[in-house]
């Protein structure tokens, strides 16, 4: 319980300036990027040091008070949704760059540092930080780490987990640990590998060592229009079949092209689909591969091909792509961003089902995807003012997730499960799978105070039976009982 005594303890740790208890000020923190989920925390703290984080967590642990870490609050799955009886630990003041080590291609930062700032710090040396979520100008490294964020370029360069080498973190009992390290292959279990992507449910990260990469010698970006998403999808398949791993392959459909055009005028052709393909590497590699890509596009009847001639043109193409979410605001009063994954080769089949759903539901569905890795972002448009449309949109978005699971895909490729999709988890994982994940959870957080009610379905969130229960083969064989 948070009482005045607890609040003065918090104040003693973070100072008057670092404690937010005023109801109206707390409003700022009510939700993250998933605005439909809101909850006001009992208190929010803005620590400036790892020691302060540790003291806050230790206090919460002593009193069994829940706490939730928050970065920049751009998450789209309600991962940073506050607990109404808990403390919100806002990490934004911990935004120092601690060490830049170019000879080792490392940088160590506090978790409140903004993603793009990492690249800015090393750019003059010819390096960059590879994971580039579309939100990179506003999201924090701590949030990226918790969500294992990806970006357009993760097809070739991997996700956050491939670029985090070590962390300092405060465990839910207040102990501070170091997982991984500046060097590779620290002996011991790879707990870093599971903390990355754990959505703030295992620890509060207070320091992060990242790997930075040498800027490639050459980059080439092409935009091509297609008369159908199928044709664009086939072009993607042909690129992969040719043994090429581009730095990025992104697809947008007519709805999102028009929205982007209305918002930022990137000069995209008015087509059923566009592909953005980017190659990077050595000059000779890029030139050779680029010819192959052009041939693939021609073979699939691409038209309106634009090849970026300089950084400005390249920037314009990417601006059109990265603005796609926000741009939907131009064509629809409200929209719901879905995030699902399919095996890339099932793209035409799943898109057809989405089109049919669009017609059946009467709601416009725009599509932007990281086509190279099968990560779909359907944008379900609706109007809040029309009664029942918000619920319908949510329903339609869930339906799309079921299409993803039908073809062996995933509930989320980058936005996370959070509070949004916790109740969907039993559709993807058996009770045994979830119970096994819980073993990790209880090892770190036996009291369940670290970002509770996220990621895992609970009866409180989802009702008594969270989703359809699938008996595991081992259970039917009488080998294993449900935990």
């Amino acid at each position: 319980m948070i009482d005045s005594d607890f609040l003065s303890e918090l104040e003693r740790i973070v100072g008057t300036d670092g404690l937010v208890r005023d109801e109206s000020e707390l409003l700022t923190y009510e939700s993250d990027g998933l605005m439909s989920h809101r909850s006001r925390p009992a208190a929010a703290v803005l620590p400036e040091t790892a020691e302060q984080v540790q003291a806050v967590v230790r206090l919460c642990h002593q009193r069994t008070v829940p706490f939730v870490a928050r970065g920049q609050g751009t998450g789209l799955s309600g991962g940073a949704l506050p607990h109404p009886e808990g403390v919100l630990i806002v990490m934004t003041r911990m935004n120092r760059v601690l060490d830049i080590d170019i000879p080792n291609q490392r940088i160590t930062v506090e978790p409140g540092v903004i993603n793009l700032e990492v690249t800015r710090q090393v750019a003059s040396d010819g390096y960059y930080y590879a994971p580039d979520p579309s939100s990179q100008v506003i999201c924090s490294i701590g949030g990226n780490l918790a969500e294992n964020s990806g970006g357009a370029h993760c097809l070739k360069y991997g996700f956050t987990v491939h670029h985090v080498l070590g962390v300092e973190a405060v465990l839910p009992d207040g102990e501070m640990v170091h997982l991984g390290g500046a060097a590779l292959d620290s002996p011991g279990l790879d707990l870093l590998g599971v903390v990355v992507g754990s959505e703030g449910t295992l620890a509060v990260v207070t320091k992060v060592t990242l790997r930075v990469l040498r800027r490639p010698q050459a980059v080439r970006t092409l935009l091509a229009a297609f008369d159908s998403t199928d044709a664009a999808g086939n072009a993607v398949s042909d690129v992969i079949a040719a043994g090429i791993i581009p730095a990025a392959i992104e697809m947008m459909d007519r709805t999102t092209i028009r929205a982007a055009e209305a918002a930022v005028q990137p000069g995209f052709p008015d087509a059923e689909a566009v592909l953005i393909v980017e190659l990077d590497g050595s000059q000779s590699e890029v030139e050779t591969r680029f010819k192959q890509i052009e041939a693939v596009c021609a073979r699939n009847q691409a038209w309106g091909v634009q090849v970026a001639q300089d950084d400005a043109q390249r920037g314009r193409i990417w601006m059109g792509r990265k603005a796609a979410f926000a741009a939907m605001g131009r064509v629809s009063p409200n929209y719901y961003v879905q995030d699902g994954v399919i095996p890339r080769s099932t793209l035409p089949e799943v898109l057809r089902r989405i089109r049919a759903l669009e017609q059946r539901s009467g709601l416009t569905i725009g599509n932007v995807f990281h086509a190279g890795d099968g990560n779909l972002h359907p944008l379900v448009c609706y109007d809040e003012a029309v009664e029942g449309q918000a619920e319908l949109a949510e329903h339609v978005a869930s339906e799309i997730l079921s299409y993803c699971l039908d073809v062996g895909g995933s509930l989320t490729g980058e936005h996370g499960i959070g509070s949004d999709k916790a109740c969907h988890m039993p559709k993807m994982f058996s009770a045994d799978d979830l119970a096994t994940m819980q073993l990790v959870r209880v090892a770190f957080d036996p009291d369940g105070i670290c970002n509770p009610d996220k990621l895992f379905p609970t009866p409180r969130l989802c009702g008594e039976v969270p989703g359809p229960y699938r008996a595991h083969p081992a259970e039917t064989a009488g080998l294993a009982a449900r935990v």
Partner: protein
Amino acid sequence: MTTITSASPADAVADLNSRLDAPVARVAAHTDIIDGVLPRLVVEPATPAQVSQTLAWATERGRTVIVRGGGTKIGWGPTSSSIEVLLSMSELDGVEAHRHGDLTATVQAGTTLSALNAVLAEHRQWLALDPPDEDSATIGGIVATNDSGPRRHWHGAPRDLIIGMTLVRADGVIAHSGGIVVKNVAGYDLARLLTGSFGSLGVIVNATFKLAPLAEASRTVVVDFPGTDQCAPYVAGLVAQASMPTALELAAPPARMLVRFESVETVAEQQASHAVTIAGQHGGTAVVLTGDDETCAWRAHDARVFGADQGGTILKVVTMPAELSSTLARIGEEAQANQLDYAVTGRAGLGVLHVLLTGGAAARASIIMALRSRVPLGQGSVVVRRADAELKSLVGVWGPIGDGLPIMREVKRRFDPTGTLGPGRGPGGL
């Protein structure tokens, strides 16, 4: 829990076979000896269900289990004084699915790497791992030890390529993590947790990986330098020129580097000749190899430390990449001071080295201790990869783990409360 360790191996085999859906348990033979210890019984399951039945039985009966893949790394980790159940995974083999359009594959844990890659090659793809012993090392063993080879430089280690896993817990429960898609953040990443866990948390029965296309052409630049001091500047020179080799290996003494380029023919050729020029600027003599010569050079490189006829102790020494020169110098000095013969190979760009030592046990122990004393926590490590029982007991396998050890122990305790799975053999002595 009933403990019947006093029962004869034959009785235990009968007891277990009565619980299995096929009699895949047997009394151990001499070929099953590990580090001089004869297991009491051996189980060769052909299905995940049989793995589950075996583990459930072992946990209930209080027996300990050690997992063997191809047996190539079974001597890693601390020696056990007794082994009750040896779980041999070799029957659980085969490629379950190769989704070539998606660049992914699912494979059973007992499949050897070379068998898997032979299947994937039909569509010009491969699981981009090249650890030693690819003909006998199994996927389960490679994942459990997070083992990799030269081309880790570009492609990464198993932990970077794994996207899904089926595992069997000590209590027999079968669980899945991840899936068959390359991008997926649903749930905790248990596949990554189990990777490199040396079988301490569960038995891996299958794994799904992201694959890579096979390159059309390959060139390897072999550079000989007068001394190891020139190696690190050469690596820096390549990095500064944005050179993108798939392998960047070092071999010492004396001082050789192997730099591999894989792409289309013209590109590989061009990059190789560029690397030759840079080598010249750093005082090296270079040749470019391709075809059989290239294959032979890599085989010889691999054999320097891992060759079947090489006895001796193998250490894995990890350093910060920029400390490469000083680390090599230190290894050389310590070897000389302790009158040991040594050979080093490894990933020059990543700071991951393997050191083969031959000489007296006390001298080997002393070099390990000396090397460990010089690395600050988190900045490197010295782990014993292969050694006799005597050395392992003298210096321990892992070296310091740091303040993460208690939470690692707690994770182990939650997964395997009765200590069924290779107790003491996991990383950090879990």
